[in-house]
């Protein structure tokens, strides 16, 4: 198995060359329209974002743009305070992602590398917790944050995100850590390294691809969350981008250019994260599962 993987790159290249080149135009004839269809809604929203309100009001939403205006963006940024909301989202997302992955990696390390009794049950229970419909938790979570005195703070949102995300990340990291060859760790044990050092010096660095992939995934989940933010926040200045957008839509109901501009601004950070992480995005996620 391992020796076969060693020659993999060569075989891949060969099979690609053997592949039916002349059917290329069929492939493009199918893919190009499909891709256009896929991109069309986004292009349309971009077009709306750059149209002026008067143009939309006079000629309708579906019409081809006849104006170019940045009013939508400037209104979204000033009235909708989209900039502040993006900053809030960034704080919650960065701290949330780091804290969740840190805790999940600790749990995964304990479960995958040690003889914890009932480890599979614990792992599946944690995953099941992540699969709970969030709606079931809304009402109690709101009460809990209040009795802790952290209701209406970004801290509460972070804690909730961390608690709610843990199960899935632990599950994936567990799969990944299990695939780390035992010899690597046992050498360290022979050297007398304790669990903390094994975790920090060996396991964590080896998990970098999985952590990167999960970080990208967690970023989209936390950044795009709406329901938790609605549950634990009530102050306008603390709203993350999704709630701010909803507010913006509530205030600018027929000003589609403003709403579309807000939506475009909200999508930029996740788009950047995705393209930056694209290379090792999902591969890390699958190493554990693929074995």
């Amino acid at each position, binding site marked *: 198995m391992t020796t076969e993987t060693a020659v993999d790159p060569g075989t891949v290249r060969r099979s690609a060359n053997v592949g039916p080149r002349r059917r290329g135009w069929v492939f493009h004839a199918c893919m190009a329209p499909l891709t256009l269809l896929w991109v069309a809604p986004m292009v349309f929203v971009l077009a709306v974002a750059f149209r002026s309100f008067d143009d939309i009001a006079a000629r309708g939403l579906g019409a081809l743009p006849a104006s170019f205006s940045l009013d939508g963006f400037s209104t979204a940024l000033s009235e909708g305070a989209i900039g502040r909301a993006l900053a809030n989202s960034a704080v919650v997302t960065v701290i949330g992602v780091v804290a969740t992955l840190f805790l999940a990696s600790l749990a995964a390390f304990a479960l995958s590398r040690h003889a914890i009794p009932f480890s599979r049950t614990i792992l599946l229970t944690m995953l099941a917790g992540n699969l709970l419909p969030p709606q079931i938790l809304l009402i109690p979570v709101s009460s809990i944050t209040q009795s*802790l005195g952290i209701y*209406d703070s970004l801290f509460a949102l972070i804690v909730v995100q961390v608690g709610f995300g843990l199960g899935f990340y632990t599950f994936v990291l567990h799969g990944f850590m299990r695939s780390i060859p035992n010899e690597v760790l046992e050498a360290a044990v022979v050297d007398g390294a304790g669990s903390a050092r094994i975790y920090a010096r060996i396991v964590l660095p080896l998990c970098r691809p999985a952590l990167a992939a999960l970080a990208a995934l967690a970023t989209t989940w936390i950044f795009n969350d709406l329901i938790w933010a609605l549950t634990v926040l009530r*102050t*306008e200045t603390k709203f993350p981008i999704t709630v701010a957008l909803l507010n913006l839509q509530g*205030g600018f109901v027929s000003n589609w250019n403003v709403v579309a501009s807000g939506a475009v601004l909200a999508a930029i950070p996740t788009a950047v994260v995705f393209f930056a992480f694209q290379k090792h995005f999902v591969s890390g996620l699958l190493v554990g599962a693929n074995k």
Partner: protein
Amino acid sequence: MSTTDLSRRRFLAGSAAIGLSGALGGCVGSGGSNDGGGGGGGESAGSSGPLTLQSSAADPQPKAALKAVVDTFDGPETTINTVAVENFRAQLPTYLTSENPPDVLTWYAGSVARDYASEGLLLDVSELWEGDGACAGFSDALRELSTTEDGTQIFVPTHYYWWGVFHRRSAFDQWGIQAPETWDDFLALCETLLGQGITPLTMGTGSTPWMSSGWFDYLNLRINGPEFHLALLSGEHSFDSAEVRAVMDEYAKLIPFIDPNGRSYSWQEAVTPLVQNKAAMYLVGAFFTESVPSDVVDDIDFFRVPIIDDSLPLAEEAPTDGYFAASRTDNPAGAKELMSHLAAPESQEVYVAKAGGAFLPTSTDVDTSGFSPMIQKGITLLEESDQLTQFFNRDSSDELQTTADTALTRFLDQPDQVDDILAQWQQAAEQVFQG
């Protein structure tokens, strides 16, 4: 009852303790514990503490108007917190029950406010209604609207508006038509317009399905009278009764005249066909002028929903907006001070002038002589009526409104299913009244 409450509280408190240790232990190094303490609040002392005004006015003009009013408040420092109305509605119970609630909140007078008051969540503001208090000079109708069963006042009304059939004066002139006097005239007018290729009525029941209750309320008021209407909304009559059936038969006559695209629109989007002269009339509250382009506002006129049975008392919908305060506020004196300021004639004047919608001030001290002719006409309309109602949800509850939305939007699509629709409506309503 109270023991259940206590045990539930303890239940949550226990979970909180675990949560705290878990959460703080978990976020080592993120400096989270400081944040947590800071969010807690409760340390703001006396009547000097800052105030929070939780506002549902998210539309640009009302938002700016409220800000202008609060800017002139010289009491405790006040922060306005604007949350779009749908979320505001959903979160209102959370706001009021929280340990550190917003001090003053925008909302509606009527049964909704009384509900919260009966739970002990609203601050008694009776002193504002006595002596030289800010609301002392308000009308008896407003006083009654702001009073709970036990006779205390919990609401400060600051403005209200009327409902009517709005249209563009220039369009009516252009088409050579006039505001109808009788119900038959109205139906005939719709028929004529339809024949000319003009949509007689616009109505946005897509993302604002509650708009469909406008016609229901009015037809019920005109056919069965305000007494029956209010009794129906408080569960004393059945939605599958012959009286309601008569209302629906009349409503069915309107359906062919209503813009079918309205099913996809919000009330704001439904304004566009009216402005573009594609639709002729719109039964809506006077607040809608905030969505009318400023160069068209002066062209807007309205007429009363025609009388159907003149033996009945003449009723109009006049929803009242204003403020209440949370009983758990840290700063009750400051909250009352702010509410007094919001209710003061000068503040009302500023708000009404800037909010964009055609709002009427509740204070009799506001000089209304400078208001536009349309607003003057609105004041006259309400003065001429025998009784004022609020609106479906404000006269009942948001929950009953949901049943009406379902029944009426389905009715607009399938008028021939009326019996089935009313039976289901009644079933859903019973569920609501059983609570």
